[in-house]
Each structure stands twice: as C-alpha cells, then as structure tokens.
C-alpha cells in the first residue's frame, strides 16, 4: 500500500498495462508531453509508435481507435468529456453499436479516458459530466471511479476488457490522495463499494461526490443518524443488488450525482428502487444532483450548482422527517 495521487494512479495503470501487453497503445492530444498530467513518462518508455499525439480531430481519432481495436490492438484514448461531442458519432454509431449489429463478430477493446473538468471556473464548454447520456445508449461500459485505488484498478480492468469502455475521470479528484494496493490489482466491474455501513439511510454517490457523502455521513453521526454510503463505481454494469439490499435495510435512499439532475444516473437509480425496492422504502427518495443549468464561470454561481456535503446532509434529514 502506498499513498498515491489520483493522477499518478492513472499513470501507473497505463504503464503497467502497456508493459504487460504490447497491443496496448495510447493516443490523444499532447499526451507525449503529458499536458493533462496522466501520461508522463510514456513516450520515453514506449516510444512514438505506442504513444501518439493526435491532431485536433476527435471524430477522426476516436474512430481510428475503434478500427485499430477491431484488428487486435487495445487502444487507450485520452480526451475530455467536453470534446466527446465532436467525436460523438464514432462513440455511438461505431463503438457502442458495432458489435451487436455485426452479430457479435466485432471485438472492441478500446478505452476512452474522459476527464471531467468542473468546479474550478472552467465554464460551460469545459465542465461536462456526461455519463448519464452514455448510460442511455447500450454498448458502452461506463466507469466512474472515486479514489486512486479504484481508478487504477478499474482502468486496468477496462484495458483488459474486450468491450468499449469510457472511464470518466473526475477532475475534482485529480490531486486527491489515497492508499493504492501494490501489485497487479484489478477492480471488478459491476461491484459496488460499500464505503460505510449504516442503518438509517442509504446514500448512493458517484465519482467526486463520494467523499462528500462520506463527510455528510460523518457529520450525521452527531445527530445519531447512521448512513450507509455506496459507490457503484461502474454505472454500466450497475450493481443494483447491493443498492436494493441496502435500501431493504435502511428504508431510505439519497442519490447523489454530480451530473445534471434530469435523466441523471441519480434518476436511474431512484427509478430502479421505486420499482424493485418500493416495498422497502419508508420515505421519498431524494436526488441530490447538479442544478439543471449550464456551468456558470463565476465562482459565485458555480458553487451553487453541484452536490455538496451540506445538501446531502439536508437530503438525508429529509428522508428521516
């Protein structure tokens, strides 16, 4: 175990997988000089053929990664969520759909690492948290890690997985630290992480909101409220059983999601529990997700948009009224 920064954990995962498997390569904008921080030292070790700086042509190189994956390579693509709109057609029409529409012939072991910048004044064009939109489209595995250990283990699993994966890397966590187990440790897809056991209310939180949920739970101890905190870690596949089991125990559910609230991952989880866990519920499900506005530049407004510890505390209290 070593204390590791989130960004370094990503870097380690890439390096370990590139060492392990020659068919893994990485492409993206300005990755050779590691402009976004996660691709340091790759060029030196793996050379120009496996560490490729691309032109500003997201649709083109997102698709090139797909083509390379079809013929046996395992590409990793670095991008930001906000640049995925430009390359959307390749992500949806090709990466997500190809295997099924070709009757299972295609194998697409391609990983898109999409950083979610937000929370630091990056404004409407650079603050997308778009995983719920991709959840609606079958065919993509959707990974939303919340700790250095998880991002490392899940990214490694994604690289070895034979399906297209998008790893949404929460930019608010870039500098966060945490224990990362030594050695070649994978984190399985579809296994939620129960970070904290509790009896009174289940809080399901995603990516950057997980630590807020933990802090909220901590704060609520003083009020004698015992909160169970669950991080699904992967949205596709989603470990709904762990959530349902927890709600069966607590009878209450708060869904926390940094994405926009309408048709969010929080909405999806709430709707699953409203259908499959209804008889366990003793109170309304409460969503704590981002306000349905674009991300304002000014810090005076931006801070109002996202889930916070206080909003979560409030939501939990609401379920207990």
């Amino acid at each position, binding site marked *: 175990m070593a204390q590791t920064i989130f960004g370094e954990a990503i870097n380690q995962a890439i390096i370990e997988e590139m060492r392990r498997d020659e*068919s893994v*390569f990485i492409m993206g904008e300005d990755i050779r000089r590691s402009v976004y921080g996660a691709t340091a030292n790759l060029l030196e070790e793996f050379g120009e*053929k*496996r560490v490729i700086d*691309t*032109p500003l*042509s997201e*649709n*083109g*190189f*997102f*698709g*090139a*990664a*797909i*083509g*390379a*994956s*079809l*013929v*046996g*390579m395992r*590409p990793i693509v670095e991008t930001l969520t906000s640049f995925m709109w430009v390359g959307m*057609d*390749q992500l949806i*029409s*090709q990466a997500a759909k*190809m*295997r*099924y*529409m*070709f*009757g*299972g*012939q*295609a*194998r*697409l*072991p391609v990983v898109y690492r999409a950083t979610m910048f937000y929370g630091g004044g990056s404004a409407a064009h650079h603050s997308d948290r778009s995983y719920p939109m991709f959840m609606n489209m*079958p*065919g993509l*595995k959707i990974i939303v890690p919340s700790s250095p250990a998880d991002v490392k283990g899940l990214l490694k699993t994604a690289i070895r*997985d*034979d*399906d297209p994966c998008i790893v949404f890397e929460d930019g608010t966590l870039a500098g966060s630290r945490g224990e990362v187990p030594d050695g070649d440790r994978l984190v399985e*897809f*579809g296994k939620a992480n129960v970070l904290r056991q509790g009896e009174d209310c289940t809080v399901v939180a995603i990516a950057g909101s997980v630590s807020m949920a933990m802090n909220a739970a901590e704060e609520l101890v003083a009020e004698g409220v015992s909160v169970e905190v669950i991080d699904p870690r992967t949205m*596709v*596949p*989603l470990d709904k059983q762990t959530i349902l089991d927890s709600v069966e125990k607590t009878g209450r559910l708060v869904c926390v999601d940094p994405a926009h609230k309408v048709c969010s991952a929080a909405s999806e989880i709430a709707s699953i529990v409203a259908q499959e866990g209804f008889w366990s519920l003793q109170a309304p499900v409460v969503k704590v997700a981002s306000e349905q506005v674009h991300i304002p530049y000014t810090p005076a407004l931006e801070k109002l948009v996202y889930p916070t510890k206080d909003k979560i505390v409030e939501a939990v209290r609401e379920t207990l009224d």
Partner: protein
Amino acid sequence: MAIISVPAPCGLSRTAAVRDRRQAERGAEVNIDKELLRLMLRRMWTIRHFEVKVIEVHSAGEFTGGAHPYIGEEAVAVGVCAALEDTDYIAGNHRSHGHPLAKGGDVKGAMAELYGRVDGYCKGKGGSMHLADFSIGILGESGIVGSSVPVATGAALAAKIRGDDFVSAVFFGDGASNQGACHESMNLASIWDLPVIFVCENNQYAVTTSYKDSVAVEHVADRAVAYNMPGVSVDGQDVIAMYEASMEAVKRARSGQGPTLIEGLTYRFDEHSLGLGRVRRGAYRSEEEIEKWKKRDPIEIFTRRVVSLGELSEADCEAISEEERLKVEEAVEFARNSPYPEPSELHEDMWANPIAVP
C-alpha cells in the same frame, strides 16, 4: 497480356488527374492474369444478379428495411477488391452489398442477412446496411454516411504500429466526402503515412442532390492536395482502370508511402434505395442522363473488351454470369429456409465480456 482501350466516360468533365490516367491507359499494355479477369467478371456478375434479385424479392415484400442497390457501380468495388488480399480490410457504407461481395463475401450469408435470418453474416441483427464478415477482412458497412472512414483509417493505423503489411480500403460516396469524418481521416492518414485507400464512389448524386450542388470542387480527387496525398479520378465503369489505380495505391500503402484517394466516376442505374425514404423518382436526373450512363454498363464494357481481345470467349462470360445467377438463386432459397433467431437471442452479442441485462 492485353491492350485495353477505354471509351470516354460521359457527362463528367475531367480534371488533369483523369486526363493523365486516361492517357496512360490509352494504348498502354496491361498485364492481367486471365484468372483475375475471370474473377473480376464473376464478382461483377455476383453483385449484379444479387441486386436484381434483391429488388425483386424486396418488392414482393419478402423482407422490409432499406436496401441500396449497387447496380451500375460494380466495377468500382470489384476493381478495388481485386487489388486486395484476403488479409486486407475493407469498410463500406449504406450502399452496402457490392463491397462485401466484391471482397469475396459469401452470397448465402449476405442474402440470409437481408432476410433477417440466423444464417446471415450478422445472425440477422445487422440487415442490409450492416453486412460484415471479419474472417475475410470485411469490417462492415455503415448506415451513417462517412462514419466508417475513421474506422478503416484505424485499421491501417494498427498495421503501421505493429509493422503488419495489410492495407485497408474504405468506400464512401460523393455526398459523404462532405462529412468532417473524411477530412479528419485523410489528414490523419497522410501525416501518419497510413496504408489506407480512400475510395470515393462518385455516382454524382447523394439521394437527389447533385454533387455539383454540394461538392465545391469539380472532382472529389481534387481534395487530395489538401492532404498532400495522391488523388486520382478514374473511370469507374472500367474495372481494369479501377484495378490499376488500386494496385498503385496498394503498392504505395504497403511500402509505407501512405494513403491515396481514388475517385471512381460512376453512376447508379437505379433509385437511391428500396424501402427507407420514399424517394420520388425523376425530377433530379434526366432520362437522357440515365440512358447515357446505362450505355456505359461496366459489365458490358468489360465483356466486350475481353472478348474482342480474345482473353475470354463469349461463352466463358455467359457461363460465369449464369453460374453467379444460380448462386444467387440458391442463396435466396437458403435465406428463405434459414430460421429467424429465437427470442432468447435478443440480448446476445451485446458484449464480448457479458454483463447482466439491465
């Protein structure tokens, strides 16, 4: 060894590139193995009979969904694929039957796919616009115009990274050439010297829209300069010319010199599509234009030529056509008798590493 002379294409003014190519052809000696000539003819006939049959059974309501006939354009795909190995890759578009058949795809599998049956290429899940056979390098047709161009470019990228010597070719239309995907892919292929061949099937229309109203340059091949790669406009009714241009491009690609843009000047003899989109016929193309082009039937042009050169006999050619016709008839029978997939198949083939159905 045959001296092939090419009749002038009609209706299209020609760029320098076309002129050069056509000069080179006129009177130039062509070394093409008789077996390859037979194969080219065979594949053109496969496609022709396939499409004729598809129109027939589709209008009889034997299956639904869209289908885009390739009749009139056979020389383009066949010329290109004749220059490729089984280990090379192709990707295509919505006008999707000609490419896989030209690459040697199984007729039965193709027909069964159109019928939505389990013995189809894609177990009935893809249909007309999504034919694919990965086992012989057919990486699949795509219903979204322009969308397979980056994919084919990526296959070529893999060759470059691994040092493999396969090439990939991608077919797209004059309409598709206006998609950003084409621009981005050609630039990528050029800066990275990728072994990819961009084949623009310029049949002069995107549905009802003339390329003259939608492509700012006279020839799509003129755009190659914007990517610092060779661009050549070829008579797309002449399978030999298509083959030769492709051989040159393949040579360049395999020797690490990078991509080529080949524009095949061609024409679709039929309407844009069956089923999908109720295209009103007539207004956008004159009867004269259609008739003029139908006189340039690629199969007739080729047959006349090889027969007059004594390369193949008329009987040979007829036999080939008849064999392919029968193959298509058998394929229809095969397709009709193939079962539909079971309901339990619905969620199969979503994932290579399956997950629980949400």
